[in-house]
């Protein structure tokens, strides 16, 4: 297994550390052609885990979007049931110490999870990919500086970086999003840069340059579409990481303040009652776990579909 001796190329465990060239599809031919999408879908659909993951993802999105309709009770209303009651017909997931309906809180909790997960990754993607494109294409000192900063960022475990940033910015959802986004910029930048370096040498890039196409245009029209596939895979895999990080931060008390329902904090609140009312911690955890497993399977499935070379 040829892991390069220096760890310039992104060698994350989530993107299996095999050397890979981007799916060089040729000049400006991207992923999203009509026939292409159909083919991708068929390949994707063969992976049952991935389909399950997609279903989970859609379910979570549905929960978040249709929360007011789906939730049987107001998630922050206290005393809708007797406190600390286990699952029952009235309250499918039981009630917590304030008498709030846990099921409703789980459903609304999907909002926080999803918002953080998607927005943070989106921000990280935009910033990271831009940095990666610039660093990879222009090279030179710009590359060196950018990548050194990325190396520095990369050295921080995400949770620790998030904690440090929240020391500065304070707590709350927005800050969680920013903190997580900053943490994920480095992997995006690394992966993009690596693939840009490979694509840069392709003949069609040279041809475009000789034809007089300006650098920004080359990057946008020729380089970017060909490095897109691994970026999409990274994004899918990172969303689960973002959600877990947010859950961890909420668990520590650094996330959205009460009474906003957040899965992580629900689990934390339940730990004190683990003996008499274990459902308070365990059930939200099941929701969180299913979401993460689903997203990871989805990410794996996307990776296998878009770049089968990475499999095995």
């Amino acid at each position: 297994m040829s892991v390069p001796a220096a760890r310039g190329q992104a060698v994350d465990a989530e993107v299996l550390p095999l050397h890979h060239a981007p799916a060089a599809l040729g000049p400006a031919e991207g992923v999203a052609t009509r026939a292409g999408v159909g083919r991708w879908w068929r390949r994707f659909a063969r992976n049952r885990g991935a389909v399950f993951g997609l279903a989970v993802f859609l379910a979570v999105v549905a929960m978040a979007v249709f929360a007011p309709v789906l939730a049987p009770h107001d998630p922050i209303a206290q005393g809708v049931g007797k406190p600390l009651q286990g699952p029952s017909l009235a309250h499918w997931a039981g009630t917590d110490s304030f008498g709030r309906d846990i099921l409703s809180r789980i459903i609304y909790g999907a909002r926080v999870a999803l918002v953080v997960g998607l927005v943070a990754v989106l921000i990280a993607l935009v910033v990271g990919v831009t940095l990666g494109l610039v660093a990879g294409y222009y090279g030179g000192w710009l590359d060196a500086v950018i990548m050194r900063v990325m190396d520095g960022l990369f050295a921080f475990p995400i949770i620790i970086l998030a904690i440090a940033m929240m020391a500065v910015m304070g707590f709350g959802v927005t800050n969680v999003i920013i903190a997580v986004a900053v943490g994920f910029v480095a992997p995006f930048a690394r992966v993009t840069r690596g693939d840009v370096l490979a694509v840069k040498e392709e003949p069609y890039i040279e041809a475009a340059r000789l034809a007089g196409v300006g650098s920004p245009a080359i990057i946008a029209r020729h380089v970017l579409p060909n490095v897109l596939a691994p970026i999409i895979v990274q994004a899918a895999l990172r969303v689960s990481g973002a959600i877990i990080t947010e859950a961890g931060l909420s668990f520590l008390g650094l996330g959205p303040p009460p009474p906003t329902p957040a899965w992580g904090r629900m689990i934390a609140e339940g730990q004190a009652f683990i003996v008499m009312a274990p459902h308070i911690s365990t059930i939200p955890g099941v929701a969180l776990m299913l979401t993460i497993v689903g997203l990871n399977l989805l990410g794996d499935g996307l990776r296998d579909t878009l770049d089968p070379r990475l499999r095995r």
Partner: protein
Amino acid sequence: MVRFVVSRLGQTLAVLFTVSVIIFALMRMIPGDPVLMMLGDDFTHDAYQRLRAKLGFDRSIVIQYLIWVGSILRGDFGDSYLNHERVSRLVFDAFLPTASLVVASLVVGVLIAVPSGIVAAMRRDSPWDYGAMGFAIFAYSMPGFWKGIVLIWVFSVGLGWFPAMGYVHPWQDLWGGLWRLVLPAVTLGTFFSGLVARIIRSSLLEVLDQDYIKAARAKGVRQAALVYRHALANALIPVVTVIGLQFGTLLGGAVLTETVFSIPGMGRLTVAAILNRDYAVVQGAILVGVFAVVVVNLFVDLTYAFLNPRIRLT
């Protein structure tokens, strides 16, 4: 090899520098007057001016950074604003519990990952393979803190086999200490094993496809030796690198695990400090933690270079 070592050392220094700058910048961005915060209750006008001058607040930011670096290198991380203890002392005390947890988790993780990765590769596409990899996916997908709580619920509250919390130094009570570490180590270790098992599997599969395995079989090497000597020797080398890379993730997971199991390690120290706005402690703990990650990565890379003859001998 020498060239590789030197370049890696250089890279490490560059990263350490960047990390220190990031931490310094973050600390300076905290709203409020840092000098005031550091003095806390001992505020007097004189003390304020003196501390201000000592830290270089009347000079440029670069000088301030250098002064800061200087004190870090001397081991002076400042004082905790809560209890006025030296931060270095607090971090030092918290270091060992975290280290024990991390080491124990690594051991658990490797003990699970290596056999399951090998089995999955040897019986590719069989129920064993799907089972092992399925377990791996679950293991690293499950949120660590929740897993810890569930384990406490089952094994502590339910079965009463293990204590739910606490930490004891090995020299105070070796077996008791280890026993207390079991649940936390399993929590963090299974997470780690999930990551590594998949890598072992794919690495081994790739190696088994290589020509030299075929040639060794043609030489008369038996299947067992083929896998466990010829193939594994090659397959595990890149895995070493991956383990190093995941060390940071492991440390991040330790933060949460310590909180769940009330282990007085650096993770819990950091979290408590940030909730108390005790920034000096936050800074000190994070500095030490990230530096540890960087150093471990360097060590792992050097080990990789040593194990891989292609690099060792150039």
